[in-house]
């Protein structure tokens, strides 16, 4: 018996927005009977490409039905531009969570949404994931789709890839190829990022880049130890910061500022920067 959350059970037993919109503006159809699940999403747009109504028809298990119901609830009221950013994780989060083996149901939801948006923009009814080379012939999953679920869900094991998009879940002949894709995608994301530094920055650009660098490169390692850092001001090349949490009492704080904060900001923003501590 699956350990479904109450939200999953509720959306399975009382699914929202079941049906098919007549003369819809967007139609997205993914999956097949043979695959064990399929979803047809129809959308009616209002003013400013805002989703006025969304309905679904789904063949599949409880989590496929619940994911479809959740998808329609999430996107109603969004503009297409907003809907484009919805991920499979958003669907899973809306439902509380899905069992790992059922994550492919949330991916199916995201695929149907993409197909629908693409249908509206281009008139195409082709499944989005079908671009590129088919890796898993049992379930018709392409390299592009595998790369995408690995990247978006930070997957590292073949079994996870199977849980998220079914690839490798049939005869298993493509498993070694899936491993290569996983290694490649992860290898690319784990390489140190080199900063795309604009030659000349306005002050606003510089502050924005400093903030981004703190968020991405510095804060995570401080938070791990219970600390944090706040950007107070930027005056020319002087970056004024204030330690927070355990950092504010840590005797090694000056070293952290030089070795971590200043080093990272110099690497990613500008060689000229100097970091100074201010007591807030």
């Amino acid at each position, binding site marked *: 018996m*699956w350990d479904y959350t109450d939200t999953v059970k509720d959306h*399975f*037993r009382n*699914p929202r927005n*079941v049906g*098919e919109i007549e003369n819809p503006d967007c139609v997205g*159809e993914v999956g097949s*009977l*043979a695959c*064990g*699940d*399929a*979803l*047809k999403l129809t959308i009616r747009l209002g003013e400013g490409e805002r989703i006025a109504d969304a309905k679904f*028809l*789904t*063949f*599949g*298990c*409880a*989590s*496929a*039905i619940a994911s479809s119901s959740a998808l329609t609830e999430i996107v109603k009221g969004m503009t297409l531009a907003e809907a484009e950013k919805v991920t499979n994780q958003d669907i899973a989060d809306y439902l509380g969570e899905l*069992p790992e*083996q*059922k994550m492919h149901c949330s991916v199916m939801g995201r695929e149907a949404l993409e197909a629908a948006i693409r249908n509206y923009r281009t008139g195409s009814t082709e499944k989005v994931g079908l671009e590129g080379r088919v890796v898993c012939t*049992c*379930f018709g999953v392409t390299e592009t789709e595998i790369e995408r679920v690995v990247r978006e869900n930070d997957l590292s094991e073949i079994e996870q890839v*199977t849980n998220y998009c*079914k690839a490798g*879940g*049939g005869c298993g002949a493509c498993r070694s190829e899936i491993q290569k894709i996983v290694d490649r995608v992860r290898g690319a994301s784990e390489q140190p990022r080199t900063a795309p530094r604009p030659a000349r920055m306005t002050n606003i650009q510089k502050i924005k880049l400093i903030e981004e660098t703190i968020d991405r490169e510095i804060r995570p390692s401080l938070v791990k130890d219970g600390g944090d850092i706040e950007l107070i001001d930027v005056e020319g090349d002087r970056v004024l910061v204030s330690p927070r949490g355990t950092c504010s009492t840590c005797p090694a704080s000056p070293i952290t500022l030089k070795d971590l904060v200043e080093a990272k900001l110099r690497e990613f923003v500008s060689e000229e920067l100097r970091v100074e501590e201010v007591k807030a």
Partner: protein
Amino acid sequence: MKTIYLDNNATTRTDDEVLDAMRPYFSDLYGNPSSMHAFGGQVAHAVARAREQVAALIHCSPSEIFFTSCGTESDNTAIHSTLEAYPERRHIVTTRVEHPAVRVTCRHFQSRHGYRLSELPVDSQGRLSLDLLEQTVDDDTAIVSIMHANNETGVVFPIERIAQIVKSHGGVFHTDAVQTAGKIPIDLRRTPIDLMSISGHKIHAPKGIGVLYVRHGTHLPPFIMGGHQEQGKRAGTENVPHIVGLGKACELALRHLDEENTRVRALRDRLREGLMARCMDPYINGDPDSCLPNTLNISFEFVEGEAILLHMDAFGIAASSGSACTSGALEPSHVLRAMGVPFTRAHGSIRFSLSRYTTQDEIDYVIEKTPPIIEKLRRMSPFGRKPEMSTKT
């Protein structure tokens, strides 16, 4: 809410009489049957009596009964020990529809120990070709392991004729009778079966007890070493309460064997006819002419099994499905696929398995509750709505 339990091929309720028979052997009669004193000796008598009760159900000698921990242990042992006994024979024959306890074990010997493995196909109704079996078994065949009845479809294989074919080539014949013992008659005096597996919890004994029948004269090396129990073949102090329970369960099964094939069969037929008449696009999986009296495997096209089961669960109805989604696998049941059942039907397959506890009221309740579930899911399905794909409306 009352549970309508129609999943008896998965496990059964322990009979009250079985539990009563077992109870003294926990804290009153807890002696070791191997002890010299009378306190242990009386327990040895209880174990001996249980062995006789099991033997009576399948018409063999009590000394041919070896108690194990479960059906899976019995299956594993039959294959492992036979291959050890006949190292010069390098061929294994089984079917594509076996329980994993047999299928996975045979494949292990193929992939890890280089055995030749023949997995016999079945036709669309789940039947074996005996001609093909005849052509497949040869003088290199060490063991043929073919189940008596399939756990998913209930299809019963003609093991009498299969046993004769195997014996004409000198191989060992093992059958997994976990689904048939106590449901249909088994007479080992008339059928040259060498090894047979039985599981307690499928016949109203508790979980954790099984039997391997070993015909006199069958060469089978010890499978658990380090003690004289079970004629030195399966060492370890006996699981006395469960052995006593299994003995009682076999006695009761023998007593209810007629009922199983009359009253239970009639209820199963009533369920089949009721669902066939009231549900959209139903299909029977299996061979109605050769089927366990308690089993119904039925597919509902264009809907998915897990969704059906969970809606049934809300009404207290417990059944199972060959759908991929129920197991966490992505492909549906290997049994239905071996039969060539289209994926569309395999995903929507439901197995109902009855027992002597099943009542007509329960069956009528299921016949009443199931059709609206199928309709509800069909309305939600992108395929179920297309009228051209539906044969009934």
